[in-house]
């Protein structure tokens, strides 16, 4: 193994440890943390890791601070961004069930996320409850919304308005979801 290859292999291992194992309350690592641990060329290390993970159906996902995808991010944008390892492809309904999601709960999450997107990112909780109550028993609606909030998919302000939270931004391709729902 060449010296250069060995250098990046060791950096990649360190990046895997940081990205896969939760270090804080929330998963994921901030860009500046990676720079501190891996050096200034951490974007290159992440690129190599992302290529490697492709064969395992995983990817390194970057979530920028302003929530918008950036074609050519600056180093400052990357330092402030949060990096995660997510599934590259998609789960089958059976697999989703295996990781602890009942079909009802997942459908409820999908509807809530889509509805919030269509309402420009902010919806009164009561409206979502009404929408979910159409197909879910009343007692479950409240429990489910609280669960989505606890997991980090949604957040709620003091006026009981619901917004999308960090996990939706990291895990859900919002455009693909809307396109899929509308094409049905």
């Amino acid at each position, binding site marked *: 193994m060449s010296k250069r290859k060995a250098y990046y292999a060791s950096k990649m291992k360190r990046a895997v440890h940081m990205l896969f194992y939760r270090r804080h309350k929330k998963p994921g690592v901030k860009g500046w943390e990676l720079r501190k641990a891996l050096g200034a060329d951490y974007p290159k290390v992440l690129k190599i890791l992302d290529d490697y993970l492709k064969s395992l159906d995983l990817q390194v996902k970057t979530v920028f601070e302003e929530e918008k995808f950036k074609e050519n991010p600056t180093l400052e944008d990357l330092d402030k961004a949060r990096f995660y390892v*997510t599934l590259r492809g998609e789960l089958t309904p059976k697999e989703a069930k295996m990781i602890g999601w009942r079909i009802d709960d997942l459908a409820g999450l999908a509807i809530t996320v889509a509805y919030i997107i269509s309402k420009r990112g902010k919806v009164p909780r009561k409206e979502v409850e009404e929408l979910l109550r159409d197909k879910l028993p009343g007692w479950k609606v409240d429990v489910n919304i609280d669960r989505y909030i606890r997991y980090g998919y949604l957040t709620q302000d003091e006026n009981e308005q619901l917004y999308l939270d960090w996990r939706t931004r990291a895990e859900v391709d919002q455009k693909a979801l809307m396109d899929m729902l509308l094409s049905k």
Partner: protein
Amino acid sequence: MPLKRERADIGREKLQRIIEMCRSVEERSLDPFLIDVNDVIATIREFFPEWEIPEDLCLDAETIRHIASVIKLQSEWVKHRSTSLYTDPFLLEEKIRRLEKGEIVKSFLYAWHPVVELEQISLHSLAEAIKYWESLLPLKERWKEIAPQGIETSKATRKELIEQKILLDKAFSEELENFWRELKGRTAEKGEDGKIRYWDFITAETYEETAHRAFMTSFLVTYGYATLEIHPLEEEIFIKPYEKPPAKPSKKQLMSVPIAISIEEWLKHKGETTK
């Protein structure tokens, strides 16, 4: 005049209604274009000449503020509509109601890429934990260290309280009166014209005692048992005891006289007193 008042009432009511309408758009995420901004501004302008009192002008300003926030919402609405994420919420709601749970889940799974996160114990952390466990004292021993000592409670005697300086040996007023009597005696013995030099009176064998005497003297003066005479040119201070303390506190403007009781000063006066 009554016509003008009536018009102002109508204007107030209209502005209140505009504010309510703007609030419902802001709070309930309604379509901000439901409000015709031009029409609303024309109404505000129409009634503006009627406003004379500050309350009405505040109402006018509040209406303008709400209109500004609706205009901001309209601009955000246009921006959102121009993005690829825009979907008519009614169309989406309709779709959602029509779709089967399974179909919704399928759509979501297509767009959902869950975060991979692991929690796993390693051999290294196990070894560290064992090392910690070995050095950890048994609970019995650790609790012994922090257990509070059993202290028997009983009544404290007056003598003990005096020893701990919680109580004074004598009541303060009693001590003050004794001190006053001493001042009168010393003035009669060593003073002139019914007064004695301040430093001659307070200087004692130890510095601590001198400070205590200065402290007591300050109370004698404050409570009207004695007075100070200051001769600034000679740099002399005299203390003059009264024969009887005044029955009522003086209503005269009181004046504070700071006197430094430094060790150097005490040593100087102690030397003089010894001579």
